[in-house]
């Protein structure tokens, strides 16, 4: 767990990340290589968090740090999904600088001095990506499987987050061996105790998903690097954000869930 400094710094009590009501223009592409800035709006101040680019290794560490368990205590069953520690660690690791807190040069560890609630709010925005809210079309028989994601992303110095809708990932059909690999890895759970008083710890599905993404991705739409559309399998494998890889690949393996026999 990240430690917080006892030294207080000037900050609004309850910040909210600045998320827009609107979304990106149709033709706008999500700029993967532009450093991200996230702005928090408090009652009196605007705070900006400037990040270096978040690498695949950062995301792997993030997903590995998420705790997913089921706990059975007699008749009470509880599911634990704890990602806050992982979010704080990710923010601390990738944060380059902040604006709006005044002079931080006297602090030994300025990152640890930042309010925990602020780091959590920023962490939520960093990983804000999910399968598109647009209803998925009934699966069509095709060589490639299309997954669409929606994501908030803020780039450049202004820190205003933009909603990018319908970010397209096209995959080759997974082989049975790949499906088996996914099932194998995600079923490798660790256990302790009994049914009455036991713990099951699940592996991070996102880590497996990131690897499978690289094996199956064919093309993407809606992303840019160096101002140009992201094309080419190797470029996509290298440049695509790890959180987007994980979400897209997990959605790939949940394909067909919406189909019902009439």
């Amino acid at each position: 767990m990240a430690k917080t400094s006892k030294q207080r710094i000037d900050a609004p009590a309850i910040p909210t990340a600045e998320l827009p009501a609107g979304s990106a223009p149709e033709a706008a592409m999500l700029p993967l290589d532009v450093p991200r800035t996230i702005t928090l709006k408090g009652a009196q101040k605007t705070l900006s968090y400037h990040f270096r680019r978040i690498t695949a290794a950062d995301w792997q560490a993030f997903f590995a740090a998420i705790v997913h368990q089921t706990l059975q205590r007699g008749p009470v069953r509880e599911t634990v999904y704890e990602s806050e520690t992982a979010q704080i660690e990710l923010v601390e690791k990738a944060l380059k600088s902040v604006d709006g807190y005044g002079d931080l040069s006297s602090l030994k560890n300025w990152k640890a001095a930042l309010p925990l609630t602020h780091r959590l709010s920023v962490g939520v925005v960093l990983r804000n990506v999910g399968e598109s809210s647009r209803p998925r079309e009934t699966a069509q028989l095709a060589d490639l499987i299309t997954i669409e994601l929606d994501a908030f992303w803020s780039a450049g110095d202004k820190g205003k987050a933009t909603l990018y809708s319908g970010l397209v990932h096209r995959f080759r059909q997974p082989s049975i061996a790949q499906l088996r690999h996914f099932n194998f890895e995600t079923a490798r759970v660790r256990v302790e105790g009994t049914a009455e008083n036991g713990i099951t710890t699940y592996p991070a599905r996102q880590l497996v998903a990131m690897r499978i993404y690289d094996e199956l991705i064919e093309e993407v739409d809606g992303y840019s690097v160096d101002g140009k559309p992201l094309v080419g399998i190797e470029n996509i494998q290298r440049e695509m954000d790890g959180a987007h890889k994980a979400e897209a690949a997990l959605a790939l393996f949940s394909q067909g869930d919406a189909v019902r026999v009439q």
Partner: protein
Amino acid sequence: MRDAARDLKGLRTAAQEFFEEGYAYPEANRTLAATPPEHQDEARKALLPQRTLPDGYYVWVAHLIWVERVLEIVPLDLAAVEVEGLLMLKQERSRFQSAHPACPHCGMPNEVHALVCRECMGEIGK
């Protein structure tokens, strides 16, 4: 913490309980369909056998059953831990099937001394 996939003793128990659950499901589902939503949890506990191990064992057994089904259609490269699990699963399925022979009419497992199938009501055991 232990790796459920490597604990064959625990997996054996989980497989037995998994088969027993499957056996109880058809009748339990019929009762549950007529049970009000607020009593569903209670009814489910009463109708289905209780599990004795943490969830993780059943997750791995479910994976083994999936692998077993796929292997009926296509060959698959397996890890040693899956092969060991499949051998155990096969033994436990044979044991379960001996104790619950399939109805010659509909294939539903029944108690070994049953004279009438609990699903199709066809005569068995003659």
